[in-house]
């Protein structure tokens, strides 16, 4: 079973307490009515489908209840890091460096 670190609880806990919540850092356009159909489609539906480190959202559903962000390698299923929802997107090279 995967162990996931919740940045709010500051505990590393079994995957079963968490739910996956899709790609992270998807920004909603400030003026949705100004978007073309293609742009709006992109925002709603088009995701990266990364092979390798993926920035994604998780929720500590059976716990503190909070959404947070994670970087998980979709090949190895290893979490490189987790961070609070309003924290800046961590630089990938610093994360992979730490893994070595």
């Amino acid at each position, binding site marked *: *079973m995967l162990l996931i670190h919740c940045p*709010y*609880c*500051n*505990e590393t*806990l*079994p*995957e*079963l*307490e968490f739910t996956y919540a899709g790609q992270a850092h998807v920004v909603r356009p400030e003026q949705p009515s100004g978007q073309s159909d293609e742009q709006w489609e992109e925002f709603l539906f088009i995701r990266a489908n990364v092979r390798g480190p993926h920035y994604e959202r998780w929720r500590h*559903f*059976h*716990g*503190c*209840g*909070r959404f947070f962000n994670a970087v998980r390698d979709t090949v190895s299923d290893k979490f490189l890091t987790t961070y609070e929802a309003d924290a800046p997107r961590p630089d990938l090279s610093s994360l992979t460096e730490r893994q070595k």
Partner: protein
Amino acid sequence: MNAPVSSFTSGALVETSAARISKAPAIGRLSLRARGDLAPFDAALGVGLPLSIGQRASVDGTEILRLGPDEWTLTTPVPRTAQIEAAFAEIYEAHPHSLVDISGREVTFEIEGAQAAELLTLGCPRDIETILPGQGRRTVFDGVTVVLWRDAEDRFRMDVWQSFAPHVLALLDTGCRELAAQSH
């Protein structure tokens, strides 16, 4: 096991050499969501809200457990709920928050005995030993969100939503009997 748990009387529900499960008497329960300066809430309660997730505080029979970054659950004798609500209403204008009476939502099972912690491992994926006596956590038990209070090494309370309670109790019941059978 389809009868609503509320129709059971308080007291022992299952008892084996491994552990004893009983239904706790009815109690007042409040859910508090607040952020920012917590001092006014501490003053209204008469005790500081616990600052880290899983920590508890108590005052005059009221127990407070921090569940999340801005969420606490309070248990209190039923007549106290109105007093706490009144005290919080006084500070509402200056310090907006949410205080909801959830007394009817949940039932509490008291779980105690030599193998109480082991019994919980049947449904909890997290390591029970990381919840220290005097702490509590919201976690999951066999797919159901529960709030687990650890009162002593071998004594727990589990708050379960009413509709999930028969399911949870059924597993606790089986577990109690199975653990007892293994030790013979």
